[in-house]
């Protein structure tokens, strides 16, 4: 039983964080022979026959190929997913063995240092933006975690079952294991991130695979390809205002530049308060209103435009209740509060006549 880590062992955390983060973010071509050896070994550990291995150029093509083949193939054996037996069961078995050999405090210490750090760089920034669950290089956080115990704490026996998965993780991308067949994917060949580690590129794919499957993102927000491949000065700002997703709107506005964005659309400032502005834009023949809201989060100062109604009739249509409308639809602050359903009416009841001053955002983040 390992009761605590030695100072020398603790000193090796950064080495493992770097090594496994690099693996998770690697854009090198897959080492196919090593991946295939890893797959074979993993199937063997699970008590399964060596599968036929089909290589694909991205997780998308692996998923599509699998869907097509399984749809055509009459052999039901191929349809049997064995992810649980070759990956999850190995993970559970290794976890139990290692847990039985180290004190909880040691487990937590390595978890916090290796697992969480690699997770933050690889899974949170890459995988979360692309798919729900991942394999291969994107398993770097948990495989790296057990690799630390194997190499530094010499828990060879306890982590023995992991050797095949470790090979796959170090050398390739996704793998989709089925009985008798395993689809393996190449690694991404482009990966661009901002200084917060989020997927980011304002003029090319932030993530792409050899077959061209790409993800476009601005500071971690996935946006349509057209906003990335079009130069900022040529982006149709009316299209941006029509985007239904507020994060996408904000991300693209950040590419155009807020000042330039406002300059491109004729507008007036109806009113302003607390660093927010109620704006009225001319979009073609139509006038529409937007609430420019500014705030600060953990990363930066941010601003976006929320479309809001322009007339009392529209406000009524929006709320469906006369009591729930702002007294003055031209008042920036009242309109801002009206973007939270039910709050105006409640605020009036709570605070009495002087209700607008009674609203306090006591903890705005």
């Amino acid at each position, binding site marked *: 039983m390992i009761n605590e880590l030695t100072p020398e062992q603790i000193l090796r955390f950064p080495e493992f964080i770097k090594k496994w983060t690099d693996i998770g973010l690697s854009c090198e071509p897959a080492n196919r022979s090593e991946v295939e050896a890893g797959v074979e070994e993993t199937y063997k550990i699970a008590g399964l026959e060596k599968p036929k291995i089909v290589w694909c150029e991205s997780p998308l093509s692996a998923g599509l190929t699998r869907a097509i083949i399984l749809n055509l193939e009459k052999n039901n054996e191929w349809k049997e997913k064995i992810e649980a037996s070759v990956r999850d069961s190995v993970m559970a078995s290794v976890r139990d063995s290692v847990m039985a050999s180290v004190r909880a405090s040691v487990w937590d210490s390595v978890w916090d240092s290796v697992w969480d750090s690699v997770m933050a760089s690889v899974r949170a920034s890459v995988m979360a933006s692309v798919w729900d669950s991942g394999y291969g290089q994107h398993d770097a956080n948990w495989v790296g975690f057990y690799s630390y115990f194997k190499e530094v704490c010499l828990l060879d026996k306890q982590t023995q079952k992991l050797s095949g998965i470790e090979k796959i993780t170090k050398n390739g991308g996704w793998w989709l294991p089925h009985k008798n067949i395993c689809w393996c994917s190449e690694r991404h060949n482009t990966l661009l991130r901002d200084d917060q580690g989020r997927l980011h590129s304002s003029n090319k794919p932030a993530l792409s695979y050899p077959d061209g499957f790409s993800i476009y993102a601005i500071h*971690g*927000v996935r946006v349509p390809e057209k906003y990335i491949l079009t130069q900022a000065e040529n982006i149709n700002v009316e299209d941006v205002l029509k985007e239904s997703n507020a994060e996408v709107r904000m991300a693209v506005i950040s590419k155009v530049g807020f000042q330039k964005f406002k300059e491109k659309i004729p507008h007036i400032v109806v009113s302003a308060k607390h660093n927010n502005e109620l704006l009225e834009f001319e979009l073609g023949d139509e006038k529409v209103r937007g609430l420019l809201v500014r705030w600060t989060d953990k990363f930066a100062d941010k601003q976006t435009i929320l479309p809001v109604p322009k007339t009392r009739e529209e406000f009524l249509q929006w709320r469906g209740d006369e009591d729930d409308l702002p007294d003055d639809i031209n008042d920036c602050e009242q309109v801002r509060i009206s973007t939270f*359903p039910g709050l105006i009416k409640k605020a009036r009841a709570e605070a009495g006549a002087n209700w607008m001053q009674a609203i306090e955002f006591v903890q705005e*983040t």
Partner: protein
Amino acid sequence: MKKLKVWRQGDVLFTQRIQEIPKDFEKNKDGIVAFGEVSTHAHRVDKTIANLYVKKSIDLAISHATAELMIVECLKEGQQVTHEEHESLSFPVGLYDNHKQVEWDWFSKMERKVKD
């Protein structure tokens, strides 16, 4: 003048005006108050010190999409509501009703939840 206290975390806002959990609400095991479809970030309740209650009859996905009222029950002090980008919220022990920001769709002339 009595002041209304409001806690805000991005496009999600909380007030303290509910005395008890309504009978048609039930505890939600996921603990996600609001979910960002593009960023995949979430306003999340720390289930070790707080519970999230949602209306029984409404599917959680619909509840998120339509900005339905949810209630956070804070059992202990601490950072009960977290988010990847925003600062965590720390409430005194108690019940908090949640409001999600909405916007107006200029073109369909309908309200929609602020999607992120």
